Each structure stands twice: as structure tokens, then as C-alpha cells.
């Protein structure tokens, strides 16, 4: 067991309305996140009251949670993209320290915003 090496990384969890899903996917991709977990139809209490988990026929207004783990500078890019968004739209983000064992799964080779050419 002593051979296991923990690598320190950051984790970000983001909760937004479903109509921001395409933007979030794009932002995470372009900021250099190597992957993410997406949980659809999350429920909870916030400034606008209790939000039910599942609006059966409306994905746009259901809440959706993204979670990704990456190096600090990638997380900073994600936060930079979310900051203007949250000034005009509802949503929350949480950043925390975390550790991973297989570092190569979470880090991209190039330190750049992985912008698509289009």
C-alpha cells in the first residue's frame, strides 16, 4: 500500500440549468479538462426556492451538475469562464482540493486553452 502516490489536484462542481449544458461542455473542453461527470436532473434548495429534480419533458429547465478534476490553472480557466455567466444567470460552483492516483488521466500535455478552430 505504501507505493501509492497521491497527486494533489482541484475538483470543481458546477450546477446550472440544462440550457447551459452546451456552454459548459464547451468551456470544460476548451479549458483543457480531460473529462467530466455530468449528473442530470439534480434537485435542491437555493435562492429561488426548492427545485425539483426532474421536469419530465423539459431538459432546459432541469438542473444539471458537472464535476471535473484538473490542475489549478485549468480550474482557473473554468472559473474565469463561469464568472461572467454567474453575473447574469443562476447557478453555483464549488472548488475543493482533491487527490488522484493516476495523474495522467487528469492532466493534458499542453498548457493552453484547447480552442477548437471553428
Amino acid at each position, binding site marked *: 500500500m505504501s507505493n501509492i502516490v497521491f497527486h494533489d489536484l482541484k475538483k470543481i462542481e458546477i450546477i446550472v440549468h440544462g440550457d447551459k449544458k452546451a456552454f459548459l461542455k464547451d468551456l470544460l473542453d476548451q479549458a483543457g479538462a480531460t473529462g467530466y461527470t455530468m449528473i442530470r436532473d439534480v434537485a435542491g434548495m437555493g435562492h429561488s426556492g426548492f427545485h425539483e429534480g426532474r421536469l419530465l419533458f423539459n431538459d432546459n429547465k432541469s438542473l444539471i451538475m458537472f464535476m471535473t478534476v484538473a490542475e489549478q490553472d485549468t480550474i482557473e480557466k473554468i472559473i474565469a469562464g463561469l464568472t461572467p455567466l454567474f453575473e447574469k444567470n443562476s447557478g453555483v460552483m464549488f472548488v475543493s482540493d482533491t487527490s488522484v492516483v493516476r495523474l495522467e488521466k487528469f492532466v493534458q500535455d499542453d498548457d493552453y486553452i484547447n*480552442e477548437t*478552430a*471553428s
Partner: protein
Amino acid sequence: MPDKAALLGVIENAATIITPYWPLKTFIATNPLAGLEEKGFETAIESGKSIHGGNGLPTRAMLKGARDKGLIDLDIVRRIGREQNSAAAEILTYPDQNDHAFEAVKSSTSALDTQMIKWLSAFLDEGQAGTAMPYREDGFYSAFTKLAAHDNVLNKNSAFKETLKNTPAKPLAALSNMLAAYSDDEKQAIIETHLTALPGWSGYVKWRSQQSQDPWQAAYPITLAAYIAVRFLIADALNIDISAKTAPVSAPSDNEAPLIWLKAWEETYRETLTAQIEQNIKDNAPQKGQASDTPSAQFIFCIDVRSEVFRRYLERTGNYETYGFAGFFGIPVSYSPFGTDHVVASCPVLLQPRHHVNETAHESHKGEAKKIGAHDKQRLNWKSFFGSLKNNVASPFALVETSGIGFGGRMIGRTLLPSLTSKADAHNDNHGHDAITPCTAHDDAGNGISLEDQIFYAEAGLRVMGLTENFAPLVVLTGHGGETVNNPYASGLDCGACGGNHGGANAKIMAQVYNNPQVRKGLAERGLNIPDDTYFVAALHNTTTDTLRLFNHDKIAAHQPDVLASVLKDLETTRLNASGERAKAMGIQTNNKSDSGICKKVETRAKDWAQVRPEWGLARNAAFIVGNRRITKGLDLEGRTFLHSYNWQDDKDGTALEIILTAPMVVAQWINSQYYFSTVDNNKYGSGSKVTHNVTGKIGVMQGNGSDLMTGLPLQSLMRDDNTLYHEPLRLMCVVHAPMERVSMLIERNEILQTLFNGDWVALTVIDPVESCTMRYRNGGHWDIIGADKQALHPSPQKAEKIAV
């Protein structure tokens, strides 16, 4: 590089101001001011004026026309005027001053817009152009930077080639440099201005950039960042300052009088409708101890306003019950039509398809299906071969020489004898073929729907529409679609709940699900007992010709031999009656007094390639009614109401009502808003006359050879003639038959409902069966009892809690 990421966020914010525009193949109705909805109607129309230069209220001529037809009650005008302390005399004479209702659509004039349109239509072409733009696979921005040096308008600026050479390879990086001098707010304002300069094109790019699965987007990607970066490069070449305000700015308008008249027009309709429903509820109240009679058949129609006419006549012919439910029957699915690998997303655009179903040949019809497949393949091959000959630079002359006579004959035939020629041409709608069946069972490749999900959707559908007992021996799931030829707006006549497609495929899928014995067993475990002898069958309601085509007669005959013959006879009677009503609405002159003569005339419209108005579509839509059919049965609602079935007694926690209000009602409001704004300002929010439409890239229409993409409805869908409105521009009224406290609770927990009801986009009336009164929702959560005894009610928190448990 966080500044580039921040720029992405700024672009996302700026883009909320534009409404995504779906391409013609899935023409989806939207509110052109959807991005401004949170401001509320009155502020949004003012912003719409300053951003788009669009008028948001009916013109004097429209109000005058409505008043002269008796559609606006003058007492209500006076009443609303008094409530708002307006000068009565001035208000009353408002419609009599002259103004011009409709002007010719002006095409875009700015040089920057013209260049954008040129580049966008070349890049976004989906197979209409004979020669495709090179480098499209690199994306819009890259393709532009590689080719723009050859543009003889742009390269007149001698510095432009140098600019192109030095511009970063990626659009965000380029934008980041171009906007470096501005704050985030300034950046957003500049981007908004440039997005709203051509809201149709930018709306299309907004839609397309979010469709990672779309084959055209996957092959030739475009993003809003690329759109703006290219626009700024063109502005640079034309020496246009990007921070200069280009959007039209106008002084705040005096909306007092037209708003009062609009409200009076709406109230005239709403008060009449409310009184009719209240009376109907009293008249149709079930007697105590009265056992409900099992109907011969139950028909489940789409909520679409066009279903109402058919349902009304069908119910008169026999012992039938009809229900209204979103026409995708609750299944978020995509499917591949038989013999193709083409994927059709057949669910509302609010949803992503969660399942994929392939169509296959039915065991007992293999031979027939094979023929259909071979014929389809042959037709598609021939179509593509002919298309390539037609569009090739070298071949059109030879094509005309060799086949001109044949095509000339066909053209004459289509013009003079449309119904005969189109029979030979018959649009091959495979869902109509009994030989084709969906594979709903889950397979190893992940296609199909798992049993658990089948049970889930089957239960959700029945509970939402309140069909939980007293099943008829035959239950017909009726999808719908329009029929038209040579019409770029064809999909606008199809089922919106099926993403602008015919609804037959979904009906077939769900009929198979409901007939699955394992699904029936699962439903029984959940308390929904469908009798063994109840058989579900799919059908397609043709909204242009009033025909309802039942699929798989052989199967119905095997399960319900007694019912089939009478149903078919009654469907024919219904068709004759519905076509008679249609003939009046469309002004179809018929010398032949026989019913079949009327049907023939109606049918000819569907097949006439010169027909600009095959049917009226959803024109005159004005209300969305949620409740048991009992509350509206027998009323002539004139094809103006969306009808969603709902049984308040079966929905104690409000789950079903929440689904209805947050999805079908939202979509109804999109449709209603599109009709409203296309009518009040057809130049800015509609799409002008069909006569001068020019389809571009197979994705949208322009006016003339270069304009913004026209996103709204054409004049012919809204007006009888140049000066007479057919559609009445009224905002949606929503009538809910349920306890007020339940509705209050749902408004409180859904922002979308607060936006629509508090913002005066939708007027909410609740007919409360518990309190036995009718109430109107007012901004901020107050309720007024409608009628003589006007008083404000507030929901009691204790009661609301009880309902929520």
C-alpha cells in the same frame, strides 16, 4: 489564458439576447424576443424596438379591423382605460387614425451585413450549392481566413491581406486581441450589437453550434466566437468601427393606447371562453351514482389546436372519448426510418432524445417491405443523380436536351392536374405502410428501450393525461402531420412535439409499448390495469386533408373486429364535417354541393405545387386548456385552443400538472409568440411574402438575393389578403382545471412559470373545482375571483402544504 475563457462566458451572456433558429427541416416556432422574456412583455417589446427596430403591438389598422368585426368589446376598452386612468375619448378613437399596416420587407443594407450573409450562406450551405466552399472542414473562421484574401470586395483594402496574415489561428484568440481594450460589460454590449445585426443568421449559428451531433456541424463546425471574429475582420477590411452602435435606436414609444386595445381584444376572447367553459362544467356535471359508460374507442390526439376541430366532429359521430397529449406520446426518442441510417430526433426540442429506435419490416409483410425499401433506394439514387446533373456546371444543357420534354409534361401535369400527378409522385411516408414496424426491444447495440423505461414512459403518459381506468377496447394513438408540396415551410405544418416531423413513428412506438404484455404487467404492479382485450393502435392525422389513417387494419380486425368497421365509417363522416369547416375558414369556393366535392378541393390544395397556403396551420391560436375533456366537450372552440387532458383528482402532488405547465404550455407559448410577433410586425419578426422568398443552403429563407434569415412566419400563414388579418394577435391564455393552491405551489417552484405569468406573456385562469370558483392570476401571486364578487385571494400556506405532501 483565463481571459479567453472569460470571453467565452461573455459571448454566452451576449448570446442570450438572440433566439436560436432551427433550420427549415425542423421548423420550430420560437418567441423572437425569447432572450428578453425575463423583462416582462411590456419592457421586452420596447427593448425589441431598440434592438431590432421591431414593433411589438398591433397597428391601428389591425385594431380597427378587429373592432369593426366585433372582436373587441368597446365596454372592455372603456373598463381597462378607466382602470389605468386613461383619457377615455382619446383611447376610444385611437384605431381610427391612419397608419400603414404592412410595408414591403426591406433587405439588409449595411455593407458589413451583406458581406457576412455572403460568407455565411456559402459556409452553411447544406447541399443546395452546386459547388461547395473549400476548407469548410477547418471551421468557419479558418476557412474564412484562408479564402478572404481572394474576396474582391474585402481586398480593396490594401492592409487587409496583412491583417489576415497576422490574425491568430483561432477565433477566441483573435477576439481576445480585438476586444482587449474593453471591459467585460463593454465587450458584451459590442458582441450583442453584432449578434443582433442579423438575428436570423446569428440565431441559426447559435442553434447549430449547440448541435454537436448534427452531421453538418460535425463536418463543418461553426461557433458564435467564429461568427463574431469573422464579422470583426470584415469590419476591419471595410474600415467600420466595431464599437459603433449599429442597432436601430428609437425613442420610447407611447404604448398606452395600443396596449389597452390589445388587452381589450384579449379580454373579449378570454371572458367569452371562460364563461363558455364554466357553463359547460355545470351542464356536463356527472350525476351522483352514474356509472361511466365504456366508450367504443379512445383517441389520443396531439394538443395541437388543429386536433380540436377533428375531435369535436369525431365525438359527435359515436361513443368515442378523445384525449389531448403532446404528440410525441411522452417518449424522448430518435428513430431511423426503414431502410435508412438517417436519424430523426422525434421529440420536443426541449428534450434530448434518450433512446434510438430502428424501423424494420414486419414479419408478416417482409415481401412488401422489401419492395418499399428498393423503391425508396431507387428514388433517392435517382434524385441525387438528377440533382448533380442539374447543378453541375457542364451538364444542365444536355439534361434539358434529353429530358426536357418529359419534365415539361410533368410540370404541366403538376400545374393543371395536381391531384392526379401527385398520386404518381406520392410522397413516400413509410410510417403509413403497415409493413414497417419499430424495434422497441432493447438490443445489444444499445438501440431500443429497456423494459423498465418502457413501463416508465407508459405509466407517465397515462397518468399525465389522466387515462387510468375505463379503457376502451380500442385505444388509438394519433400522431399528426401536414401535407404540402414545394413548400420550404412544410415541417412547420408537422408535429412540433415530434421536433417538426410527422408523429406517426412515435405513435407506432408507443402503441407497441402499450401492447407489450410485460409492460402491461409492470403497469398493473403500479396500479394501472389495462384490460387484456384493450388493443392500442397507431394512426396519423393529416391536418391538411382531415384524413385520419389507422395503421394495421389487419391487427385491429384480429383484436377488435366489431369496432373497426364502425370506426372507419365514423372517421369518414368526421372527415367530411371537418373539411366542411375548413372550406369555410379557407374561403374554398365549391359549386359542387356534395361533401366529396369539398374533400376533393381540400385535397387538391395539399398537392398543388403553386399553393402558398395549403392549410392555416396554427393560425388563430389563443388558449391552452388543461383539464378533463368533460369541461370543454361539446363546445365549438374554433380550432383556437391547445387541449391538454388532465385529471386533477389523480394528481394530488401536482407532478402531472408540473410536467404539463413546464413543457407543453411552454411550447404552446413559443408557438403563440411566433404567431403574435409575426403578425404585429411581419417585416421584422415574420418572414414577409412567400412570393419573394429565396431558400438558401436548404436551411432557411431570405427575401431577395441577400437578407437576414427570415425566422418567423410568412404573410400567407397569417393574413387572408394584403389587408385582412386571419390570425388574431392575442397572447396565450392558459386555463387550468385544478385547485388554485396546487397551481400556486407550482408557480412558486418554477422560475419559467414566474417569468411567463408575472411577465404577462401568458394569462393564467384557474377554474378551481374545490373552491368552485374561477380565478385569475395576477403579477406577484395574487388571485382575483373573476365575476361579480371581485376580491383578492392569497393561497393559505397550510393548505398548500397539505397538497404538496
